[in-house]
């Protein structure tokens, strides 16, 4: 029934990626340009004048204390929460024009898992964006949905109702659905929160693979210890952008102190993680 997953079936030459190749790096627009973004709930600011530029495809971890606005930043970029001010550019154009280049993994708690769909159905939804109004998914979309389920290692559960999956398996369904979007830039909201070790590993390997395919992934992440191991860049956020850039230069005790305040345990954990990374290199 299934053909073995070929890597090229999951890839799609994106116009923006082609632009990078032909124009050279300097001329190409940044993958993501967030300028002066402010979000407020009832006049209380959640994000305040956030500026963030990701010039080229990278794996980016977004970290910060609870309530720092990490999820809100992603949602503001994706147009899911209204901005009080600011501007978003994805490959040089407003997000609304670049939706097809964007993949999204929401927080697991954001949906009702008792909803009567199978894992396969849920993943197939990733292809709806390219179909447009009234068109039903066809053989190509179904095949891709199955390949994406295989990629996250749960193709044997394709026909399960999503509520009968474990937490980690549900998270993989969301990942597979995002893969089915065939995006250039992925936004993932805490994909590793509360998942088993096997799933975390699958996600990590997926991040690496997406990176080698020239994709950009922004991940809201909660575990400081794994930041240096998982990401190239880090964004430190606490309502305002504290710092962003390569992990080596940005993920410093000084910046972490600015982000988290003086909580020692966090600083120690991060320091350990950095040392581990240095030793392994």
């Amino acid at each position, binding site marked *: 029934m299934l053909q073995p997953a070929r890597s090229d079936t999951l890839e799609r030459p994106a116009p923006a990626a082609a632009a990078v190749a032909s124009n050279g790096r300097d001329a190409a627009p940044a993958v993501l340009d967030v300028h002066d973004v402010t979000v407020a709930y009832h006049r209380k600011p959640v994000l305040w004048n956030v500026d963030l530029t990701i010039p080229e495809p990278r794996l980016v971890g977004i970290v910060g204390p609870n309530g720092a606005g990490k999820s809100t930043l992603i949602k503001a970029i994706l147009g899911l929460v209204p901005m009080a001010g600011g501007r978003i550019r994805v490959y040089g154009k407003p997000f609304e024009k670049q939706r097809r280049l964007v993949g999204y993994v929401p927080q697991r708690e954001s949906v009702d898992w008792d909803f009567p769909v*199978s894992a396969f159905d849920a993943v197939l939804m990733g292809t709806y964006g390219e179909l447009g109004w009234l068109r039903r998914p066809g053989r190509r979309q179904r095949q891709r949905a199955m390949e994406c389920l295989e990629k996250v290692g749960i193709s044997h559960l394709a026909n399960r109702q999503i509520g009968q999956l474990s937490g980690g398996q549900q998270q993989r369904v969301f990942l597979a659905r995002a893969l089915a979007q065939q995006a250039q830039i992925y936004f993932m909201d805490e994909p590793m929160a509360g998942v088993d070790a096997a799933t975390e590993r699958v996600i990590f390997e997926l991040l690496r693979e997406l990176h080698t395919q020239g994709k950009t992934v922004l991940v809201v992440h909660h575990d400081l210890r794994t930041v240096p191991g998982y990401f190239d860049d880090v964004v430190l956020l606490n309502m305002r952008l504290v710092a962003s850039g390569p992990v080596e230069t940005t993920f410093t005790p000084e910046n972490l102190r600015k982000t988290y305040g003086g909580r020692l345990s966090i600083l120690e954990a991060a320091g350990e993680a950095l040392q581990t990374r240095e030793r392994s290199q």
Partner: protein
Amino acid sequence: MAFTYNTWIVLAGVSLLGACSGLVGSFAVLRRRALIGDALAHAALPGLCLAFLVVGERNLPAMLAGGFLTGLAGVAVIAALRHGTRIKEDAAIGVVLSVFYGAGVVLSVSIQNSVTEGSKAGLESYILGRTAGIVRQDVLLIAGVAAVCLVLVLAMYKEFKLVAFDSGFAGVQGWPAFRLDLLLMAMIALTVIIGLPMVGVVLTAALLIIPAAAARFWTERLEWLLFLSAVFGLAIGAVGTIPSALLRNMPGGPPIVLAGTALFVVSLLFAPRRGLVARSIAARRFRRRIADQTALMTIYELGRGAQGGDDAVTTNAFLSRRAWDERSLRVVMDRLERRGLAERPSTDSVRLTSAGLERGAQLVRSYRLWELFLVEHAETAGNYADLDLDTIDEKLPRELVRELEGRLLEETG
């Protein structure tokens, strides 16, 4: 009951209404909007009365339009309370529903008392519904609404499914999630309103909720849920009209709700897999299977260790090994004896037959292999491990089972 032309009209009208309610009600239930439908129906009552006052006679389209307007006003107030204040949605619904309904009852009674005898509106029939008065035009109206809902759901199945499941994701893909949601709500509101004369403001929500809630027991697929829910609604409508046709002064709503309740209870109890009976049978069967396997393994291991080649095991030895009482051992032994796997050479000892020995050996092997697998492949084990010991050869790749067997041999020497 004579099946006159009128009876057929009533039957057709209420059944179609039921089917339509079942279809759009599925989305209301999945979106957790079921109670909004209830509030909308209650909030329609003052509008029906006001429209009667304005028009001055019993004019169904005008009254339904009036009901629709105040119904929507009620929903708007709920939304405003939820967003603008700290009142939670359930409290907001409760407040709006009762205030509008109270106002509606006061209005309808004052109208009854003041208007001249001939044009009395029979407004009280809108509270619990009346099926007897249905005429051909009503059926055509219902059929029209049902057809529109059916066509919309069939054409935009993909869009509605996506928005109902994950509206945020739909928004990122560029679907107008809010407007699609509004369209769903509009279909729900329309269905509620056209049903008011027959089912009444108090019980209309039941026709919206019960078919979908009952259908959910029978299926795990949205397309089947929609289909079954529409069929259930149709059946509830058809069966529920019979008492109103037979009994004088029987309002329309209550018998329909009772018919729905019967269907719901049957689904709750007897649906395969999700039904209570099926679930308790499955749980019982599973417990028994585990108990039988545990007993076979325990007797096998104790018997193999006994002196003098006698593989009988005393019940005391068994009970001190397992935290069982005598009675549960007796029950399990009865079953194993019937299956020819074990026997009782004396009142206080048990022994495996040759078939039992073979089975015990298999189980012990599976158990050891699973144990080893859980230790050696801890990171992936959670995805595969299964309490059912027979399945290791089905669940794990053959090479892996071989490898585990090799390790097992090494360990035991």
